[in-house]
């Protein structure tokens, strides 16, 4: 089986996902185009050299609808012969796009493929694509549908994470992200978003608050209490895990992932493709997997998919130098650390979505790139990237430097 190598990756800075965010004025199409064009330019890819572009978008409607991947590829100048496909596995879409791209290479059918994602949350809006899962009683009721935040609070309640625990984790995320920016650890991969005149709109992540402290977080009210109580989700949570008397609502805007706009992309290809275009492989895709997990708790899929991936790849915890788990909510990470007894110094070492934001469909591609940069910076070898997913799923990928 041919191997799939990572040749390059880029991402945009993450803009605050609100009308006052810097990237709000940038169309979803323009945003998705940025990393594609950067990959082409940085690697001097000739026109029509890419076999496919796979982009994750979670709410592919309105301006982000109708297979944005094809049009972003065209707009980026990749060439008329470069097709595109848009996929969604909710929050893991960006990582799945990388895996789908890798699979095309590993199957020997394509030579050079881009996997990535884009999400303009400020413009399209979270949940804009609707869907049966929360709405249709025949699905919502048996699947114990709850908003993710309530599931995150359920995880905290079930596994015993207090408000202090989740806040302390959030403070660490902010500090690590702040330090990473200060030391220029993201410089290699973040490409600014520019206007039609070449003027910079945003060059740096704008959601983070490195000065965050336990005291400042203590001021924030839990975000999901009211929604859970008025909307009946507290009852759903308890019925899904009846050993719980009542849900402990610990998550708020400061220890949950930020709503942001952003895009990222990873260039993958066979060994031959690298040679053909004069590119040096940086890492190989060792293994990847997907799994469905308990839908009520919803966000514990990373634990299940990691177990599956270890079993399938014959690898174990000690083979992994760095873990990168999307910080959807603090309890998600704390549960993962608890389940595998992971050294805190080996996971999300440059912060994560709590500090930097989670542009849904793009995040998976972004954090894969972030951890590859960190492997290189610290001269380590292997990393596992994973994300929790709506509806109870997990996606994970193991990469290894070459």
């Amino acid at each position, binding site marked *: 089986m041919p191997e799939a190598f990572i040749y390059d990756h880029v991402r945009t800075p993450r803009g605050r996902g609100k009308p006052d965010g810097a990237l709000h004025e940038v169309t979803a199409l323009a945003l998705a185009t940025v990393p594609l064009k950067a990959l082409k330019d940085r690697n001097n890819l000739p026109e029509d050299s890419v076999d496919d572009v796979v982009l994750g978008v979670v709410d592919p409607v309105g301006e982000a609808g109708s297979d944005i991947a094809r049009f972003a590829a065209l707009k980026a100048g990749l060439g008329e012969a470069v097709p595109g496909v848009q996929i969604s596995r909710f929050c893991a879409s960006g990582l799945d796009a990388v895996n789908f791209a890798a699979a095309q290479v590993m199957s020997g059918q394509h030579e050079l493929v881009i996997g990535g994602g884009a999400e303009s949350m400020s413009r399209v809006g979270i949940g804009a694509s609707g869907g049966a899962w929360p709405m249709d*009683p025949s699905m*919502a009721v048996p699947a114990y549908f709850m908003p993710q935040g309530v599931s995150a609070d359920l995880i905290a309640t079930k596994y015993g994470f207090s408000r202090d625990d989740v806040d302390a984790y959030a403070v660490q995320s902010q500090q690590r992200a702040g330090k990473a920016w200060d030391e220029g650890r993201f410089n290699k991969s973040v490409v600014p978003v520019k206007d039609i005149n070449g003027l910079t709109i945003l060059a740096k992540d704008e959601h983070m608050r490195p000065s965050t402290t336990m005291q400042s977080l203590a001021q924030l009210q839990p975000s999901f209490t009211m929604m859970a109580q008025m909307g009946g989700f507290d009852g759903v949570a308890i019925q899904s895990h009846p050993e719980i008397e009542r849900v402990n609502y610990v998550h708020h805007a400061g220890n949950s992932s930020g709503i942001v706009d952003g895009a990222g992309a990873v260039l993958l290809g066979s060994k031959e493709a690298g040679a053909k275009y004069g590119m040096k492989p940086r890492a190989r895709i060792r293994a990847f997997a997907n799994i469905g997990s308990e839908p009520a708790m919803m966000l514990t899929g990373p634990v299940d998919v990691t177990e599956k991936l270890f079993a399938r790849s014959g690898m174990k915890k000690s083979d992994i130098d760095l873990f990168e788990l999307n910080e959807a909510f603090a309890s998600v990470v704390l549960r993962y650390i608890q389940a595998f007894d992971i050294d805190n110094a080996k996971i999300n070492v440059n912060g994560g979505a709590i500090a930097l934001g989670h542009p849904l469909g793009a995040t998976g591609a972004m954090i894969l790139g972030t951890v590859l940069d960190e492997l290189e910076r610290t001269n380590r070898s292997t990393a596992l990237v994973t994300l929790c997913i709506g509806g109870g799923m997990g996606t994970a990928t193991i990469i290894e430097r070459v």
Partner: protein
Amino acid sequence: MAYKNFKVETDSDGIALVTWDIPGRSMNVLDETSTNELDAIVKETTADAAVKGVVITSAKEAFCAGADLSMLEGMNLAYAKVFKEQGETAANQMLFEQSRRFSQVLRSIETSGKPWAAAINGLALGGGFEITLCCHYRVAAENPKPRLGLPEVKVGLFPGAGGTQRVPRLVPPQDAMTILLKGDPVTVDKAKALNLIHAIVPAADLIKAAKDWIKGGGKAVAPWDEKGFKLPGGPVFSKAGMMMFPAGNAIYRRETYDNYPAARAIMSCVYEGLQLPIDAALRVESRYFTSVLRSKEAAAMIRSLFLSMQELNKGARRPKDVPPTKVKKIAVIGAGFMGASVGYVSARAGLDVVLIDRDQESADKGKAHAQKVIEEQIKKGRAKPADAEALLARITPTADYAALKDVDLVIEAVFEDRKVKAETFAKAQEHLKPDVIFASNTSTLPITSLAESFKDQGKFVGIHFFSPVEKMMLVEIILGKNTGDVALATALDYVRQIGKTPIVVNDSRGFFANRCVGRYVAEGNEMFLEGVPPAMIENCAKMAGMPVGPLSLSDEVALDLGLKIMKATEADLGPNAINPDQKKLMVEMVEKQGRLGRKNSKGFYDYPEKGKGQKSLWPGLSALQPKQLDPDTLDIEELKQRFLVVQAVEAARTVEDHVITDPREADVGSILGFGFAPFTGGTLSYIDFMGTKKFVELCHKLEAKYGSRFTPPKLLEEMAAKGETFYGRFAPKKAAA
């Protein structure tokens, strides 16, 4: 054309007045004849060029109280027959077509091209209300009481003749969901405010108002048949819809634990139907209706909560040769909480009440309770100040037993002590009219032995109320060995007068209800001792369909009382009658920890002061558990089953012991008395619908794991072997005859 159930008269303006008036019945109910005739009337009036429009009304006090649910029994029989002869698909097809017939007739009114106006003269419920919803205009007679609604969900059904489609096309989704899922009727004023009806007029002007609307050019098109129709809450997939449906689904689960297929079907009908044009939407509704009709929950709920309850209320168990009695005046001896409440409900029903206690002050206290209750009713708008005045005038508190001289029935509710009771009987006997029936409200002492202290055992009976009496609709009538027919008939007539539902049981420790519910509470304690997390015990019980968790219930009843009963049982029946570990637990709670339950704000739960938050499980509980089990290793379905099976198997024992002689009484009694999972139809229906054989197998499985409390009685083994059901073997009609 002449009709049996309707009268059709066309006036000089060409308006046909269709008057519903089923001969020989006090109320119009939707039956097969009415459906067929309505169909014919629509065809006739549509074809007749002379008819310009149609007004439909009723000659009875009510418009129509809904469908004749016994009709469904016939449909079920037909279904079973086709199923057997032609298979399931053919049977489902038949049921689909038959059960949607009425819906199609209503749709034909809506699309007849002639304007139809409903003149709603009174109560319009269920199918009756659905008839009016398909009319192009609805005018109702003034009335302060709740008159219009769709109560089907209460008996495990849902409005299957357009109700789930027309209501949310008229009113915003949240209001529509309340009407459909709660099933409570609304007043005509509320209906008007909600846009469910168009106008309210004095009763005398009703027909004229309906005709005037037609004469004024009333349009024969429903809003949803017009181009550009917009749903009142906007499209399903809109911002508003995304706020509404996910929360609606969650609240449905929170409130029903997903135990009620009809309620879930309502949610689906609204969600799916509102995305469709009306004809397709009605077809989808019919598909769900068919599926709900096929559910055992609907069959069980219709039988127990509608048919059996009605039969028991009408005196199914009353000895036929005793002439009707009418209690005008009763005495309640013992004006404590229970006695005062019995006095209140009796006075509320129009009876004169003598409230006797050992001194005037205690008797007055009992009357003060009645005053407090009626004042709360007034506050809630359920009574008028004049009602309070009349009610209080009917209650005479006294310490003088001479006041017993002209009462028709005595109910004693004195302290649960043989000696105290015997003294009360002796004192009362001196003053009673001959032939007065004497009842004891004891909940623990056997009636037969109590009766021995009364001079005429034939006139002695148990009338066991449940607390809180004002709310609890069940009354257990307990027959002692020598209780006579007149005593039984009088007790039944009295219970009927106060508007409660009676069950008649033979004497036994705990009678029927407390025997079963005692098992429920004990099972909670067993799980606690096994190491199941307390919250999981409580939640699984509620998920099984019980209204209150067993630990909560213990707290409500009071733990010291529970311990007292346990000790008494041990003293009377020997040490094997109780679990010593449970006793140890109760001794620890009551005697060492001073935790008595709700009454001292400390039991299994801690109770904060009123208004200062919710009760929460006492953190010290885990220290009283010998071990703690990991919840992820526990089988939730089995925990749920244990709660229901332990009660059902006890109910089966009461049948074997002849405490219960009619399965309807075990079913209705268990639902009304202690809230046994209503969707099962009650304790014995739970067994019947599971299948006796399967139930016995389940008992043996649980017996092997948890002990002899799950051992099925011989009777059940025998029934399982023969493939019998309770309703088959103890067919109620024969028992009632």
